[in-house]
């Protein structure tokens, strides 16, 4: 129904560094997140290259044992808390309001606070390298090793403070995403007909809201134990180190779904556009996310099968961990159903979305193997687990990130990335990734534990490690090409227009880049895929 359009207030776009530091605009904040998290991706990646160089052969002495322990701790902590968790907050910030036809997030100033907390959390964590040593007890920081009795420096305290800031950032961001999605959808957009990326971000944010407080508590209690004389995790004072593990994993297990659900949302956006048909089984995919989110809170002790719990406890967590494979499987099959009978265009974005599926299947299957408790008793804390986690986090979440990046770059910049370079990047990434991580399944079966700074020769582990190291440098090559493509395309990429891919969702209904107010007129929609309804030429 037509209403006389209100004249928009005149808006002067501020430029310069100050505008970036003081911005409350969701698009600028989204970009701040993306730049910051990608920078930390490079930091974490460099840490990985140091690890792989040290492990390239047996008995190497590239770094000292303590420095190695700091580096792998920071690699894990950085990649999880400074990269994969916030990077999708970056995409979410930029695109969630656009995709629901809103002008900004519900709480722009809270949004700004979320970003700066994440930024300073990352800075605090990394300052530890220069101020007495980085944390060195692994990203899981188990007690009693992480208590002052066994870690008397300040590294763990930096870890705690950095993560407290990042956790708060996450929680505030989650509140913002949930309220925005629930209250600011444009006319006609039912919650069940919101785009799958929006739905994924909302479900993820609900997980963040319920899980992050648990690690906040764990971190505060550890801070108290370390600095204020409490003994929650210390046996001499009546405490129990297992309390740390339960508190930690109660958050950190849902955290892995927090890291992968948005990437799955991106895959659910990219596949239909480049198959030119709707997502197959929208309802099943949406409900499977809900299932994963709820069940994700019931599996945490599958990280603890070897601590000596009664068999009844192990049984419950084994069963729950197997059940969670079912909704994941539904997604995979529904995605293949989306491809089937389509008109597939193999753009860089599409290749990475397909790569996600291919690699995530492997990670999911090794996850099912890990749910089989006696197998877990053998392969827990070995490179088999390192393989599994990288297949789901790198082959999954990071590939999903690249898919979203190639897909949405034209909307943000107004130019497309170079497609030839993008395809080369994809193939180099796939080869490098599998070279690095596939052999880790095997070397774990051959008895190689995790978190060791070196290993003995003559145990059959050297060659697998050597190949992994080569693979890691190939991954670095891919990332380098990606960064070059990113920056060169900003100047010389092909002009994109509003909807270069023929997308179906509302972000493609405005200019590239969008104006500060997103839409001249808030759109009204009538169901899924608003840009495709009634206009087959747009597909």
């Amino acid at each position, binding site marked *: 129904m037509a209403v006389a359009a209100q004249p928009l207030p005149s808006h002067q776009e501020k430029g310069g560094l100050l505008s970036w530091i003081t911005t409350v605009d969701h698009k600028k904040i989204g970009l701040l997140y993306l730049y910051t998290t990608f920078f930390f991706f490079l930091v974490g990646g460099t840490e990985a290259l140091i690890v792989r160089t040290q492990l390239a052969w047996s008995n190497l002495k590239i770094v000292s044992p303590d420095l190695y322990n700091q580096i792998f701790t920071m690699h894990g902590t950085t990649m999880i808390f400074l990269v994969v968790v916030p990077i999708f907050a970056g995409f979410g910030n930029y695109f969630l309001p656009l995709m629901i036809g809103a002008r900004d997030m519900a709480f722009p100033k809270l949004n700004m606070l979320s970003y700066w907390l994440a930024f300073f959390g990352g800075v605090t964590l990394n300052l530890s390298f220069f101020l007495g040593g980085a944390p060195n007890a692994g990203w899981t920081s188990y007690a009693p090793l992480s208590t002052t009795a066994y870690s008397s420096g300040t590294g763990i305290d930096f870890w705690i403070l950095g993560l407290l800031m990042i956790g708060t950032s996450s929680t505030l961001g989650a509140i913002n995403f949930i309220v925005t999605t629930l209250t600011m959808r444009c006319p006609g957009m039912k919650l069940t007909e919101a785009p799958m990326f929006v739905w994924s971000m909302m479900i993820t944010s609900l997980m963040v809201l319920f899980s992050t407080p648990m690690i906040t508590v764990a971190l505060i209690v550890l801070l108290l134990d370390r600095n204020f004389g409490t003994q929650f995790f210390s046996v001499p004072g009546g405490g129990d180190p297992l309390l740390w593990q339960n508190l930690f994993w109660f958050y950190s297990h849902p955290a892995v779904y927090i890291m992968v659900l948005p990437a799955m949302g991106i895959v659910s956006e990219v596949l239909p556009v480049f198959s030119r048909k709707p997502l197959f089984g929208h309802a099943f995919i949406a409900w499977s996310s809900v299932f994963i989110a709820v069940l994700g809170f019931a599996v945490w002790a599958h990280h603890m099968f070897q601590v000596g719990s009664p068999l009844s406890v192990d049984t419950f967590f084994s069963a729950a961990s197997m059940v969670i494979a079912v909704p994941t499987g539904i997604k995979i099959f529904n995605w*293949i159903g989306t491809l089937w009978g389509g008109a597939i265009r193999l753009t860089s974005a599409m290749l990475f979305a397909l790569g996600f599926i291919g690699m995530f299947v492997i990670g999911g299957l090794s996850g099912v193997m890990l749910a089989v408790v006696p197998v877990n008793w053998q392969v827990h804390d070995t490179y088999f687990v390192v393989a599994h986690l990288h297949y789901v986090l790198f082959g999954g979440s990071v590939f999903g990130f690249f898919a979203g990046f190639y897909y949405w770059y034209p909307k943000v910049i107004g130019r497309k990335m170079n497609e030839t370079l993008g395809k080369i990047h994809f193939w180099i990434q796939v080869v490098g990734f599998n070279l690095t991580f596939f052999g880790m399944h095997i070397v774990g079966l051959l008895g190689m534990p995790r978190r060791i700074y070196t290993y003995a020769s003559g145990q059959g582990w050297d060659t697998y490690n050597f190949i992994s190291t080569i693979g890691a440098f190939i991954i670095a090559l891919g990332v380098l090409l990606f960064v070059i493509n990113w920056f060169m395309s900003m100047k010389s990429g092909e002009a994109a227009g509003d909807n270069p891919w023929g997308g179906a969702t509302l972000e493609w209904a405005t200019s590239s880049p969008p104006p500060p107010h997103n839409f001249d007129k808030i759109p009204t929609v009538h169901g899924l895929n608003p840009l495709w309804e009634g206009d087959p030429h747009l597909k």
Partner: protein
Amino acid sequence: MNARRLLIATGLIVIVALVIAVLPAMAQGGTDCPTCPVSFNTPSILDPNSFAATETVTLFYVVLGIAASIFVLVEALLIISVLRFRNRPASEAIQIHGNTKLEIMWTAIPALILAVLLGFTLRSMANIRAPVSGDAIKVKVTGHQWWWEFNYPDLKITTANQLVVPIGKKIDVELTTVDVQHGFWVPQLFGKMDAVAGHTNHMNFSVNNIGEYGGQCTQMCGEEHAQMRFSVVTVSAADFQKWATDQQQPAPAPAGDAATRGQKTVIEKCAACHTIGGTTAVGKVGPNLTHVASRDFIAGGILKRTDDNLKLWIQNPQAVKVGAKMPNLGLDSQAINDVVAYLGTLK
């Protein structure tokens, strides 16, 4: 931008970086290294030598078979759908929204497969962790930063680094730690169990074949987590009897000047941390040395027990294993030779 030139340039940069990174590995490969950690035969879980390991490997192959089949099916479907439906005109894309019957099927079938898998899992769990009944040898395993202590309470034997057991007999393990969490694992014999502070964990195993099986700590436990190794040595019942009888003897009186001087130095300098049965050395911080010469390894299972290695270790433990709790004792080379001579008599 020329994609090919860019690829070649960045490729060259990365290859140079890689070569620099692996040069140390290449330089080292193949050279003999007497002070490098000992290696055991590949401690593979696929080489089971006990009931528990065999049961686990069988289950592993079952789940691997299921996983491999699903892998082939799904990846084939993925690749086929991409190859078959790519680069077609847009008008040929079938505009379907789903197929409820199909979706229910691919929910129910995986659920069924997993239910069967769960059944196998539960059965194996019960078999492997069945409590010990009847005749068993009790061993208390205690994790320390960064070595393993083995105590046989009924036999009154305390040793370290090598766990000697008789073939076919149930070994009833009580596992704990004096400091941080450690992981007790011998891949060829049993799945791992953590040594948790304030808890005593129970597990048991029996070995089917005579041999030595390498083990390692699996729970990140600090600076030298990577060098906290041990082995299980399985011998015949008769050999175990002989070993136990020998281990139950106190340390013999030293013979010869060097060994006599060495014992004096050891009691003076080492008694604070080490026990030597039958002497006044009753320290409990480090491994029991009463029969150290009956063992093949020192320094937390990483160095062969040769005279040279012993000298190296005693002279400067930090150089061998940085962070080790054993301090530099400031002994001169004469004193070290004497100590090594004495320790060599502690068979």
